[in-house]
């Protein structure tokens, strides 16, 4: 493998070409804002006891999933871990159904039987929502296998955390995907921590994007707080995979503002660290600024904010007013009736 195959540098771009068109910026802004507002509301409903169990918010990491999604096309498959609300919204799943699953209602995507960590949508090609750290990575290789087996040009994206990237099955999957040249984009969302353990304390490799090198999997480290950089890197990965060249690895440097889950006292990092990330690197602020520079008015942005706010309020209302699942649901969906 040549040095050029794994790159730490940001994707090169023509200096005077606009990074994104205004429409693209609009979409990125809208999609990221939807995730942020949705997650804030989720935190609130959790605080009110309307959402139970483990609940992992995606606040801070929005640019990763939104940027990758902008490089995909209809039919591409996605799978991720339990920190999945953002992925579902970006994939086009409805805020109402996601929120109603969070509150454990019959109208949720899994009819109340999955919860925060387990939602799926055949229609939007979203394959979960997995609670076992690393399990989604082999499953993702299987989604890519299916694309290849069926002779489509679709790709699969398997997201994992920095903590997950230490799991053995991740490397089994790298090997399998490289051997079979599967169209699989492995995305490591390096938010610097796996629960309370910093990436530096959990991985002897400090360049996760290079972790596919032994199998010849090209890797790239990307500023995951910059939706443009994410989108551009994802495009390269998608092109590589669609071209039949096998898997690709993207390491997104990102940050989660909130705790690991709702019950995380966050003693492993300082408030200053979090504040600094928010202040200096916030992905949504960055796009907001870009839009203003492109001449979009504050008013227009406010209209988007209001639209998103209403959408999220509607989802929250739907999720609170929907009925709980019928007790008979206990016994359905255990087996497919042959």
């Amino acid at each position, binding site marked *: 493998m040549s040095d050029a195959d794994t790159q730490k540098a940001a994707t090169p771009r023509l200096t005077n070409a606009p990074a994104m068109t205004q429409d693209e910026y609009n979409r990125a802004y809208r999609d990221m804002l939807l995730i942020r507002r949705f997650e804030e509301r989720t935190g609130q409903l959790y605080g009110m006891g309307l959402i139970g169990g483990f609940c992992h918010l995606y606040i801070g990491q929005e640019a990763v999933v939104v940027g990758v999604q902008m490089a995909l096309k209809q039919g591409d498959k996605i799978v991720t871990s339990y920190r999945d609300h953002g992925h579902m919204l970006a994939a086009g799943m409805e805020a109402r159904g996601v929120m109603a699953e969070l509150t454990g209602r019959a109208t949720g995507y899994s009819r109340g039987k999955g919860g925060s960590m387990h939602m799926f949508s055949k229609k939007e090609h979203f394959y979960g929502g997995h609670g076992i750290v690393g399990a989604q990575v082999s499953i993702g290789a299987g989604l890519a296998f299916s694309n290849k087996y069926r002779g489509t040009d679709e790709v699969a994206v398997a997201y994992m955390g920095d903590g997950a990237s230490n799991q053995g099955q991740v490397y089994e999957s790298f090997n399998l995907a490289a051997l079979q040249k599967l169209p699989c984009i492995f995305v490591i969302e390096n938010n610097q921590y796996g629960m309370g353990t910093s990436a530096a304390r959990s991985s002897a490799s400090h360049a996760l994007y290079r972790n596919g090198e032994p199998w010849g999997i090209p890797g790239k480290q990307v500023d995951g707080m910059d939706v443009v950089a994410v989108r551009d890197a994802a495009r390269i990965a998608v092109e590589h995979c669609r071209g039949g060249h096998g898997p690709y690895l993207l390491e997104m440097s990102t940050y989660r503002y909130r705790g690991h889950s709702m019950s995380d006292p966050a003693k492993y990092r300082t408030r200053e660290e979090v504040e600094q990330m928010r202040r200096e690197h916030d992905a949504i602020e960055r796009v907001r600024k870009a839009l203003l520079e492109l001449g979009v008015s504050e008013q227009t942005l406010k209209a988007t904010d209001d639209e998103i706010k209403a959408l999220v309020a509607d989802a929250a209302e739907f999720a609170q007013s929907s009925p709980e699942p019928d007790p008979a649901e206990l016994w359905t969906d255990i*087996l497919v009736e042959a």
Partner: protein
Amino acid sequence: MSTQVLMPALSPTMTEGKLARWLKKVGDVVSAGDVIAEIETDKATMEVEAVDEGTLARILVAEGTDGVAVNAPIAVLTADGERDAGGDAPAAAAMPKVAAEGSGMKEIADRASEAKTPELARTVPEKDWGETRSVTVREALRDAMALEMRADDDVFLMGEEVAEYQGAYKISQGLLAEFGDRRVIDTPITEHGFTGLAVGAALTGLKPIVEFMTFNFAMQAIDQIINSAAKTLYMSGGQMGCPIVFRGPNGAASRVGAQHSQCYASWYAHVPGLKVVAPYSSADALGLLRASIRDPNPIIFLENEILYGQSFECPTDPDFVLPIGKAKIEREGSHVTIVAFSIMVGVALKAAEILAQDGIEAEVINLRSLRPLDTATVVESVKKTSRLVTVEEGWPFAGIGAEVAMQIIEHAFDWLDAPPTRVHGLDVPLPYAANLEKLALPQPDWVVDAVRKLV
């Protein structure tokens, strides 16, 4: 409009906490995400972030207050430019509509007992499939895969040594030549990874057959089998099924020691969301494997290495298939019911022959499927014989015999003339030495002795 800030729950179990500190004061403008206060629970100190933006109009709970109930209003925010209406309490957040106390509980109970009650309708006699010929279990398994792969392009086989080597136990002989390497896939020795890959493929609707060189190695992949394959249909509210077959030899082979000689029947049979099938004869192998490949659910298909080379009569009808969940009465009798599966069916049949010489007629039931378990057939038999002996190669504790006996206690207790008895492998890791190994695995005379104690 003003909004109340409520005391948040920060863990599934928190009911109250201390409002330790306010980080904003009345009159401050806050935006969503700003930390406005700190609260303490018995476990930790946590931050309260504003969800809405506005001006902090009033603080309702002073800092330092202990025992603030979750969901109690702690402050009021007003939207920009608006004035706090004072005592006029904003609408409290809607609480979930919890199903009325007691309602639904009866249905749940009904449903639960319904699920436990076997259909006690008389079991239908097995269909006569006509002409038969003698084939080995090995050939029957191969034929089952070949027939289903010819019929459905979504079916493929993957595992270690299944393609070029023709199978570690030569089960996949000839399949690579016929179907090519797109559909007969050699994997590296990475059970966890390739099982997860196959599960992912199955979630998209493909129908993988995963061969484990032996089921001992599937322990490396058991997380994917149970957490991903068995539970996804339920967790997805029925959206995403997992049509997959996990097959390979299970249980003791011969002199291969403890790590290569375990029966996993009760491990998998424990799990809702799986079907567990254990063929004995060539007909079982052919008919049940075809049914398993066609079944839209994850199937654990437990073979036995020692049976691979044995020959049995097997129907030649190209449509031959067997239903999953139906036991087979291998031999009729009226004095005792012997229930077995896989290679132990042969042991039970040998025991029945010995017993017949003494005039004891044993009914031998080949379970064929462990989940679903054909309780009805066993119950019907015990109602006739009033005695039950279960035979399994695996360990006794929480084993299949324990489950079958419990089913009989639940459903045919009044018909029993003697306590149900288990014959099983000894409760030890399987030893290597020839004599010790033989002493650890059920032999026909163990079954004979068990029956003699009952009749």
